């Protein structure tokens, strides 16, 4: 990921990750994408025990090893050395995706170039500009029980990445459940996209003004600091 990320206030990535970590529940099987999603692991409280799934064939990846302790063959899907949690297992790529397609991931946390108000996600191609490929994103977005998208609210040109309808080729249709940006927390429901929280220091009016998608509001909109 990291395509078209706008320059943001210091610490916005960590704040998004900290808010995302609140959605994690004890016992979950979770896949973390590259970029801001990777940071979420740092904010999950110790009393919540979860298993991280890596699509290159590990269930139970742990924190980064100390410098000099790396096994170059033992890496996460981003290619960085990892350690193992107690109870971890290795398997081939077919099994890694069997876990995903079978619906056994409780949560996937991924980045996006665009998210639509019905939960369509575009995150793998900018035609003619950047064409990295979908990797495992289609399976993850289509099959995880809960799909959380972490992204900047605006692209590097200041345009809303939260849109009525995606312009870029899709990764998956009607897939996102929760979208967390540096400006807002938004929930995708059957009847549209709901603004649940704003990120300090933004106001509800500022978030609505910056968002191309139609944002619905019911009840209080909290502020996350």
């Amino acid at each position: 990921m990291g395509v078209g990320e706008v320059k943001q206030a210091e610490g916005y990535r960590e704040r998004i990750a900290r808010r995302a970590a609140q959605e994690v529940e004890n016992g979950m099987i979770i896949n973390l994408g590259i970029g801001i999603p990777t940071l979420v692991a740092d904010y999950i409280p110790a009393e919540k025990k979860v298993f991280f799934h890596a699509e290159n064939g590990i269930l139970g990846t742990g924190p980064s090893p100390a410098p000099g302790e790396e096994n170059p063959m033992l890496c996460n899907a981003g290619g960085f050395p990892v350690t193992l949690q107690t109870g971890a297992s290795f398997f081939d790529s077919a099994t890694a995706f069997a876990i995903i397609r079978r619906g056994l991931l409780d949560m996937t946390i991924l980045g996006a170039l665009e998210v639509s108000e019905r939960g369509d996600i575009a995150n793998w191609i900018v035609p003619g500009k950047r064409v990295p490929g979908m990797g495992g994103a289609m399976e993850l977005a289509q099959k995880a029980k809960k799909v959380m998208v972490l992204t900047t609210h605006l692209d590097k040109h200041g345009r809303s990445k939260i849109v009525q309808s995606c312009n870029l080729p899709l990764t998956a249709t009607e897939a996102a459940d929760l979208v967390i940006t540096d400006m807002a927390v938004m929930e995708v429901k059957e009847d549209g996209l709901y603004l649940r929280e704003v990120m300090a220091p933004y106001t509800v009016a500022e978030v609505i003004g910056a968002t191309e998608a139609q944002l619905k509001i019911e009840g209080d909109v909290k502020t996350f600091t």
Partner: protein
Amino acid sequence: MTRTVDPFNKVVTIEEAMSHFHSGMSILVGGFGGVGNPPTLIQAMLDEGISELTIISNDTAFPHIGVGKLVTEKRVKKVIASHIGSNPRAGEQMTAGELEVEFCPQGILAERVRAGGVGLGGILSDIGIGTIAEKGKEKIRIGDREYLLETPLTAEVAIVHAKKADRFGNLVYDTSARNFNPLVAMAGEVTIVEADEIVEVGELSPEEIVTPGVFVDLIVQSEGVNWRWAWEK
């Protein structure tokens, strides 16, 4: 291709293994982000001047790592992969029209290789429906659900990196370097394994063997990774 080696001792020299390679061929490559790419076989392909390759691999690794070197040295005309983002040379060559890239969702790529390796005529999946990934694929309805027909993948040669091989070709992999390797090992018309350690038949526990040696045609001794990893300072 007929086997010319003793089925209970498939260990050959790298020179003997290279007789199975030629320019313009299709090659399946095990590995993920370079981890599990066989370094010695790839280096030998570079040294032999093998080119015009069709590569089937999860990704194109990094410009100086594993299968990525073949792309950097312009030995590849087509790649079937899920991701090329970590190798900017692949993207540049694609944009310049020098490299044909066929993208496939990662888990579907794994299953297509597996299908090729296990004698299946195709697989049905709903991954990518409603996206450009469904383009050109036949749709098949089973009951009230719609699936895409995904076709099997095989190649003239499959190259694999294992931690240990016995002389029959029973394989054990190194942690997450397993990834695509057991699938690739099944799907080559000729499967060539590069092993960090070659042991006698009987030294591996039947319980620990991941790939049964019946899928393996030739084994060569690995000379180890000859690149610096992207995370190494």
